[in-house]
């Protein structure tokens, strides 16, 4: 069997259910693949891992991948299982926030570590500065891994994913009507999340391409299986969590939300979505994520073979 190492963007959770399902159900085995799934975490930059040869293929958000490409690491998107973005800003309603422009003069929690790009683009889209509280600006905090800044009211809003952090806020006893959320998707600044990326130079190798074709095919099979059997998928994820920190309730709910995001995709990247992402990033104001339109940052070569 051919060995494939997959680097995840975050810890083992239903966000990556498709791959765990493919592994568990033997879809990879059927394709004669021996896949190792490497969990990520707050301290892991998947781009760095792949650059160092620690993985063959990785999952990343497109802004981060395109930024790396401009930094000289030629990453190519070979598949896009996530159709839409799950990122949003979650705020206390009682702080008096109703619309995006109400954000000015407030404290917002944002993820950094390469995940700040969508937020920055959105703010520049709105013409809000991020240099501190003012009538035209917001104060940005580097948010840690959890939702405490919101619960402790150290921030008025924090970044959340529809499938994860939002529910942690709810689980903490907050009722949904105490909150107001701004989905990036709704604000027209959504960027593509959780695509599969490989190094460009490897694609020249037919053996590697073939391996990726089989990998994407099996992975998409896993994703579709997961969408249809969300509870079983969540349990598979749970079995694979070595930290013993995840709970069944949370993972099942996450799987349900994730299924909504993957639903629209057969795995092939929609060039329109790609263009929208690039446009959003190019408009990133004074300090844009990417300065010029990337060339060759995606390919259908793999999905074309895999899905037909």
């Amino acid at each position: 069997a051919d060995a494939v190492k997959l680097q995840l963007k975050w810890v083992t959770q239903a966000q990556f259910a498709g791959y765990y399902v493919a592994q568990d159900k033997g879809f990879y085995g059927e394709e004669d693949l021996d896949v190792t799934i490497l969990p990520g975490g707050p301290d892991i930059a998947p781009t760095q891992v792949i650059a160092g040869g620690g993985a063959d293929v990785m999952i990343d958000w497109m802004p981060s991948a395109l930024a790396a490409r401009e930094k000289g690491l030629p990453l190519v998107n070979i598949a896009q299982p996530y159709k839409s973005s799950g990122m949003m800003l979650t705020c206390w309603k009682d702080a008096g926030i109703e619309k995006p422009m109400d954000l000015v003069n407030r404290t917002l929690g944002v993820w950094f570590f390469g995940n700040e790009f969508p937020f920055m683009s959105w703010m520049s889209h709105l013409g809000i500065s991020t240099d501190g509280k003012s009538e035209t600006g917001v104060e940005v905090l580097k948010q840690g891994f959890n939702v405490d800044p919101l619960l402790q009211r150290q921030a008025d809003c924090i970044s959340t994913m529809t499938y994860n952090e939002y529910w942690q806020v709810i689980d903490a006893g907050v009722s949904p009507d105490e909150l107001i959320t701004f989905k990036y998707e709704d604000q027209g600044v959504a960027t593509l999340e959780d695509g599969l990326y490989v190094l460009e130079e490897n694609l020249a190798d037919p053996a590697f391409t073939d391996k990726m074709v089989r990998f994407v095919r099996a992975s998409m099979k896993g994703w579709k299986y997961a969408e249809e059997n969300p509870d079983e998928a969540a349990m598979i994820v749970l079995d694979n969590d070595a930290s013993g920190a995840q709970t069944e309730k949370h993972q099942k709910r996450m799987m349900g939300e994730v299924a909504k995001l993957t639903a629209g995709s057969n795995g092939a990247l929609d060039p329109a979505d790609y263009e929208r992402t690039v446009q959003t990033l190019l408009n990133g104001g004074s300090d844009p994520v990417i300065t010029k339109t990337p060339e060759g940052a995606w390919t259908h070569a793999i999905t074309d073979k895999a899905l037909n």
Partner: protein
Amino acid sequence: MRSLLAVLTVVAAIVVLWYAACAPMNIKGVLTELERGGAQVVPEGAPARRDMSAFGLVAGNSFAIPATWAQERPRLPAPHQVVTELWNTTVMKKITSKRSLVYHGWVTLSATLLGFAIGTGLGILLAVGIVHSRVMDMSVMPWAIVSQTIPIIALAPMIIVVLYSVGVQGILPKAIISAYLSFFPVVVGMVKGLRSPDAMQLDLLKTYNANTNQGFWKLRLPASMPYLFASLKIGIAASLVGAIVGELPTGAVAGLGARLLAGSYYGQTVQIWSALFGAAILAGLLVGLLGLIERATLKRMGMS
């Protein structure tokens, strides 16, 4: 015996203070929860309470104090909550379970011990070199100090990536980070120890024309023993911290570091605290073990 009594008294005092501290620390969250549950609290509305003094809130809502010791996600968990969690995750779970602290402790411990062995070995070698060679003394020592001013947690992911790319994985990368943190105290302590013989003790050997080797085994090494053990105790605690730090960029799949992170990630304060205490207890056991070895060794050397 006296010591035990003293420790117990101090611990008891800390526990009392701790319970007392829980009330102001947790009061805001508790009041918000109670308010959601329909209780009458003063003043009403979380935003109104946001900038109020916690002590004022405790005074105004004294009925809520018991609730500050039983929150699910407290800012400061009460001692019994931490103890219960510790008990549940150690004694009550099979040690092979992923939810068992014993299992995670073992994962961390193995990396700690390997890292400690590497770090101590390296530290002693460096110290021996520094004491015996002027070049090493003059060139290595300043850079050993510089090495400790580099934030290893920032470098850890890169070290792991680089090691990964040359095929080193598993427990070893963690152990290397652990070794990086533990070698320094050993170097410093051992250099001090190996240099602790006074001029007369050295002169004596000189009159015997003892060679470097004999000087090392018969004078410098025995003289350094108290220093060695002191630095080993610091070193093993550093090793443990190193192993925990090293767990984060390896995917944090298992180990006390992974528990800490997962707890932090899901805001499970009680879980963080129990993992923290687990780590400190482990360190305490390791240091205690070294203390026993120290006592036995020094006793055999007639130095206790």
